[in-house]
């Protein structure tokens, strides 16, 4: 039905078939006119506010094409004199208010407003500027808001409402005073609703909302401090995202180049978060099998996504007993590296642990009080994928032409199960690989997981091993997760194990990754992880470094030492009157 032609629209004299396009703007883009817009986002509801997709439709006049349903026989002008004039005026009006000093903005080169001004060669603004809110809100460890760069397109408001189902921010005040505000205009760090997922920053066309990058400076300082050793580890999704910034093909895993670049930056130890992901699986899947056998606290909910953990604590604390107590890979890596450093005679505070993450919420996770020992954090600094690119650029490293090196041992060893953590469905697949092998070692590779790898926000699977039937679900996007929780509460859904990732498509689509729109790139990045998986060992229990760790530091799986270092606890943070 979608591909059935429903007539033709004439765009700048060219006949373009309608093939299920929801609005005229999509059809215009299909015809090859890539009009840059601010408030139109393919993943969000149509808003029609930025007025940059204005077109002239014969017999209908001038309209925002994103709000028009294409109809057979429409004649559309995209670049008439009138349209060109209006589009330029609208752009100048957007530029006339606020701070658009591109050379001093972290979003430069990746900003839609800047791109459009350049494409249209806007060299002067005819309208007098009005001084606007210049307040910069850096109170959240995850995100920074700069209202002076905001053009009020509302993308952040809509993704927070429509996709995450939270509504931490909305339009407030009126006229020149209009702004995007949290409830009661609190700083983001004080917002009761924000879970730090950062999807707002992912859809922001300007530099108004960005992951907090203040820690980069501290990382450079630690590297240059002769009294400190600095360890760095990179999350799975980073290896399939970073290359895009340097013009390398999307989705191509570039572990080797990244390891080289990290050494050139001066890190003493270069590790892979996928090692800790294997460790997470060993603990979390064991925890699941125990709960499954006893039938308690099911469905078990994964806990490696920090925005999801924030969500449960703030909005669904009744599910806290269901959350896995296993820490996220990042928060397992920190204490293990520090324990290892101490075992070798070092002092905990002399090892600085830096995590490179595709995520803004990871920054907030590292700051949680329970992840500190005597004032020293398990993870000292979190840098995003984009933040690492900035460090590489600042250091003048010719990234594209780097040779491949390998991660340091033993915390650079990993299995494919640890690598696929970065995609929605990957954590569940890794956990099931572990569980199947534990329950039926003879047929460890008998289960196929293609249904968990699809580009969908909700996936489910039933695995039968001997007389055990495990029902699992994988959900991404917090609004979808909320619906699943509601269905469970209402007794409409029954699962044993559920993986939740806050970002649709998983960590590959995190706020710390290079900015993108749509599902195609999510898929490409995830495929990169599954490709790397085929070159590695299949299941987490085969990670030799992890095995050695249980002999050396951790003792028994799920034992007291493992619990101290690798597990955590949660508490209700629900708003109380």
């Amino acid at each position, binding site marked *: 039905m979608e591909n059935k032609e429903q007539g033709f629209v004439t765009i700048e004299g060219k006949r373009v078939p309608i093939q299920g396009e929801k609005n005229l703007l999509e059809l215009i883009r299909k015809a090859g006119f890539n009009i840059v817009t601010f408030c139109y986002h393919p993943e969000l509801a149509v808003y029609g506010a930025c007025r940059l997709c204005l077109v002239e439709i014969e017999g209908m006049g001038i309209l925002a094409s994103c709000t028009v349903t294409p109809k057979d026989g429409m004649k559309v002008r995209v670049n008439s004199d009138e349209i060109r004039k209006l589009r330029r005026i609208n752009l100048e009006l957007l530029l006339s208010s606020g701070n658009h000093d591109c050379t001093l903005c972290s979003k430069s080169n990746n900003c839609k407003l800047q791109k459009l001004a350049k494409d249209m060669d806007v060299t002067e603004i005819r309208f007098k500027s009005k001084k606007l809110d210049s307040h910069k809100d850096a109170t959240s460890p995850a995100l920074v808001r700069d209202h002076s760069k905001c053009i009020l397109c509302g993308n952040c408001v809509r993704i927070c409402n429509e996709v995450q189902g939270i509504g931490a921010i*909305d339009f*407030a*005040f009126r006229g020149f005073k209009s702004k995007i505000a949290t*409830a009661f*205009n609190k700083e983001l760090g004080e917002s*009761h609703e924000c879970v730090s997922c950062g999807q707002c920053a992912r859809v922001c066309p300007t530099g108004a909302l960005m992951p907090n990058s203040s820690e980069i400076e501290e990382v450079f300082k630690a590297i240059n401090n002769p009294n400190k050793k600095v360890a760095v580890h990179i999350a799975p999704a980073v290896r399939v995202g970073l290359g895009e910034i340097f013009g390398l093909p999307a989705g191509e895993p570039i572990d080797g180049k990244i390891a080289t670049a990290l050494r050139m930056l001066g890190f003493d130890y270069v590790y892979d978060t996928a090692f800790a992901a294997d460790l997470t699986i060993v603990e979390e899947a064991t925890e699941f099998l125990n709960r499954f056998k006893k039938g308690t606290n099911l469905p078990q909910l994964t806990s490696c996504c920090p925005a999801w953990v924030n969500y449960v604590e703030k909005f669904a604390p009744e599910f806290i007993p269901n959350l896995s107590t296993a820490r996220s890979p990042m928060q397992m890596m920190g204490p293990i590296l520090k324990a290892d450093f101490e075992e070798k005679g070092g002092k905990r505070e002399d090892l600085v642990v830096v995590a490179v993450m595709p995520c803004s919420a990871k920054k907030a996770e590292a700051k949680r009080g329970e992840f500190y020992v005597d004032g020293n954090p398990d993870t000292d600094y979190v840098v995003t994928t984009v933040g690492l690119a900035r460090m590489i650029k600042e250091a003048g490293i010719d990234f594209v032409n780097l040779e491949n090196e390998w991660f340091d041992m033993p915390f650079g060893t990993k299995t494919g199960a640890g690598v696929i953590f970065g995609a929605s469905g990957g954590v569940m697949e890794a956990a099931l690989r572990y569980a199947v092998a534990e329950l039926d070692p003879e047929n460890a590779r008998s289960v196929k997981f293609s249904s968990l790898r699809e580009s969908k926000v909700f996936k489910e699977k039933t695995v039968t091993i001997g007389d055990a039937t495990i029902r699992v679900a994988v959900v991404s996007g917090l609004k979808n997760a909320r619906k699943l929780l509601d269905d469970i509460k209402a007794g409409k859904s029954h699962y044993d194990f559920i993986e939740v990732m806050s970002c649709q498509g998983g960590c590959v689509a995190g706020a710390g990754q290079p900015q993108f729109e749509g599902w195609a790139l999510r898929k490409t990045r995830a495929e990169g992880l599954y490709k790397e998986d085929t070159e590695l060992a299949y299941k987490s229990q085969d990670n030799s470094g992890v095995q050695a760790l249980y002999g050396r530091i951790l003792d028994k799986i799920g034992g007291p030492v493992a619990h101290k270092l690798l597990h955590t606890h949660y508490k209700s943070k629900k708003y109380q*009157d």
Partner: protein
Amino acid sequence: MTEKFAPVDKILKEHGCDPAKLIPILQQVQDLYRYLPEDVMRHIADKLEISPARVFGVATFFAHFAITPKGKHIIKVCNGTACHVKGSSFVINTVKDKLKLKEGQDTTEDGLFTLECVSCLGACGLAPVMVIDETVHGQITPAQAVKLIDEIIAAEAKHA
């Protein structure tokens, strides 16, 4: 908690907890408290199953709603076209001076008065118009405005 918001819950119930009725709900709630306190807005959001940021957005969009406590007596001076032409700015400035209101401040320190400049009261024939609480005063002069305020201050002093 439930008792604290019982009168609000009554209003919410009258409107069937319908988020589409947010504006009338806020109007009635504001009549109750003379402004919209934060915890009340949170409570309304919770009951209507919308985000508190949305309630705050609506409350700050309309000039009618106040998010800080309003004074006991509300003075509205019209600054619509007709009133403006007839010199309402002089009335506004005089009242501001009289009430010792600083830039951006609309409620007096003692909480007795709130001054609101409104865009039209629909009584252009009486321009310039001032409304104190529910009483309309047409063709007002700065001197008359000061006199009316003094009368209220005197009456309040007698009460106290």
